[in-house]
């Protein structure tokens, strides 16, 4: 079945170390490759050397202020989407789950489009003070609001009813999307373009200012998800079975939802609505190493980072000097790839 099963060493912990270690190494490599290419031509080795020896030239500045923050941001966004996708697939006990199911993307879109379209008229003071953070802040508020609403609806007798959450998610998504539509109707041409580009997604980020906060808001939640692999495995057996095996089911589900909301909410607020990674990366990791969440969750965090940073490399360089929206790249490559995956599974090739 899975590629790692064919490996001679199948003893628990060394398989985990092997897979995660490999993924980590690939991630570092991917980061360095992404750092080496871009519209601005640089010799990366020379640049890194010059940065370390306090001898900064224009190329070094471009790498340090423009490309490196973007690569780091890409790794963080990918980590958030990959890890959250894996955790949600466990919580919904469905390999087709994805962060958009709990309203994050549509809530964020509603927040963002509100900021773009009516922010200037309804809250000009806030918009001016927050400047280019206004859209991410509103997007995050939208994402958090939608998720909390869905979770609240999904709570019944102190239990997190996943089926209810799914239904609530559908309803909230529909409401948010019509809200977005209404805003688009009110929008003028320029706002519409801004919104379109936001929706398609972009990892462009202005310098390092926001990155420390983004890093904390992403790495802490996905880290928590990564260390709960064993409990997530048990959760797959069923809520009651998991409780029999010592899992505090209510606390675990709350942890999953809040971690997903915080990490993906942050990612999506700054990068726009990006899909696919949360759905496909956990699949790939499972294909590679089996369904054990002690490997799948951290593996998806690393795998998501790799996919994101590579997709952004394509987005930045395929049509130089234009930036292709990353949503298009992921869709154009991820879509057919996922289709192939499903078909290959069906024909039992994989």
């Amino acid at each position, binding site marked *: 079945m899975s590629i790692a099963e064919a490996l001679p060493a199948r003893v628990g912990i060394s398989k985990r170390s092997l897979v995660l270690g490999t993924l980590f190494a690939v991630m*570092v490599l991917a*980061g*360095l490759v992404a750092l080496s290419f*871009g*519209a*601005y*031509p640089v010799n990366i080795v020379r640049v*890194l050397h010059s*940065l*370390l020896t*306090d001898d*900064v*030239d*224009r190329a*070094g*500045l*471009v790498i*340090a*202020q*423009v*490309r*490196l923050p973007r690569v*780091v941001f890409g790794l963080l966004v990918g980590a958030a989407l990959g890890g959250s996708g894996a955790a949600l697939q466990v919580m919904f006990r469905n390999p087709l789950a994805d962060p958009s199911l709990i309203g994050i993307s549509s809530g964020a879109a509603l927040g963002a489009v509100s900021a773009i379209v009516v922010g200037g008229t309804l809250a000009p003071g806030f918009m001016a003070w927050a*400047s*280019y953070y206004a859209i991410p802040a509103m997007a995050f508020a939208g994402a958090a609001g939608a998720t909390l609403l869905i979770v609240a609806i999904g709570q019944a007798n102190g239990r997190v009813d996943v089926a209810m959450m799914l239904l609530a998610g559908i309803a909230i998504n529909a409401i948010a999307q019509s809200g977005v539509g209404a805003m688009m*109707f009110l*929008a*003028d*041409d*320029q706002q*519409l*373009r*801004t919104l379109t*580009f936001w929706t398609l997604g*972009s990892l*462009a*980020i*202005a*310098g*390092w200012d926001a990155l420390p906060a983004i890093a904390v808001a992403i790495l802490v939640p996905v880290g928590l998800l990564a260390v709960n692999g064993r409990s997530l495995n048990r959760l797959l057996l069923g809520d009651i079975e998991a409780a029999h095996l010592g899992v505090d089911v209510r606390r675990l589900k709350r942890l999953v939802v809040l971690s997903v909301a915080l990490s993906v909410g942050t990612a999506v607020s700054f990068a726009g609505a990006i899909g696919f990674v949360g759905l496909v990366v956990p699949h790939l990791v499972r294909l590679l190493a089996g369904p054990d969440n002690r490997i799948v969750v951290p593996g998806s965090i690393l795998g998501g980072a790799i996919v994101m940073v590579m997709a952004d490399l394509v987005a*930045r360089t395929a049509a*130089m*000097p*234009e*930036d292709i929206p990353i949503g298009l790249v992921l869709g154009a490559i991820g879509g057919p790839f996922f289709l192939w995956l499903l078909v290959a599974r069906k024909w039992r090739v994989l």
Partner: protein
Amino acid sequence: MPITRLRRRQVLAGMAATAVMMPRLATGAGNQRIVSVGGSVTETIYFLGRDRLLVGSDSTSSYPEAAKKLPKVGYMRNLSVEGVLSLEPTMIVLEEGAGPPVALDSLSSVGVRMETVAEARSVADVVAKIKRIARLVGAESEGDALAQTVADRGEAVGKAVAAVQSRPTVLFLLDVKDGALMTAGRNTSVEAIVALAGGRLVFDEFEGFKPVTAEAVQHADPDVILLMQHVGHRLGGEDAVAQLPALAHLRAAQEGRVVAMDGLLLLGFGPRTPDAVQVLARRLHGEEAVPDILEPLRAE
């Protein structure tokens, strides 16, 4: 991984060094490397004879022909930071509305000089725009001369238009999407140019660009349909536009009063604005009503 060993101090020191270097490069006007963002900005720089300073422009810079051959840095509202920087500009001249904000922030954080030029909606605005750009590129005297020429031409066309009695209503077709027509309302560059040409937008109940229904269009019954040439090409030409389901029953469509004009010329509000007004006015009111009084203004 090197990331962890980057010191902010080093980076800031580098920034400061570059920022210090910048003005020295800029004051030698002949050594400038300029990226122009916005078709009318690029166009103006060509008219001022400073096009040799240009190292790149955005994708909306389509006039003159030579401008199309400049290295491109993306669409005006979706600039690529590294793309701009790879041209090693000393200054970026941007038309108001360039973006995205993230890219502009990024560019300033690297210490590149960014100058924004305000949007123009009248001949007076265009004159101010020309003078500002002229100052930026060190062509003050050419700028004053060009501004005067444009002002004079604007006045002449203005007089010709004022002499016409009719005030035809105009439907501006920005795009057709999913059967809905995107059209222009108040407070748009379209309204401004149509007014200068002695016309009136058929829709003035809303601001900006909005979708309208076919019924609303039918009810409005415009005298003329106006659109940008590239949109017309995409839809199959002026005849095809006249046959679009949403427009086919309009008087204007049936009588062949569909006007397609180059987008940059029509809405750019650059030095060729008086030319645009004349062309549009002649199409709106008829060639007898508006004489061809201007020698075409061309950049080399």
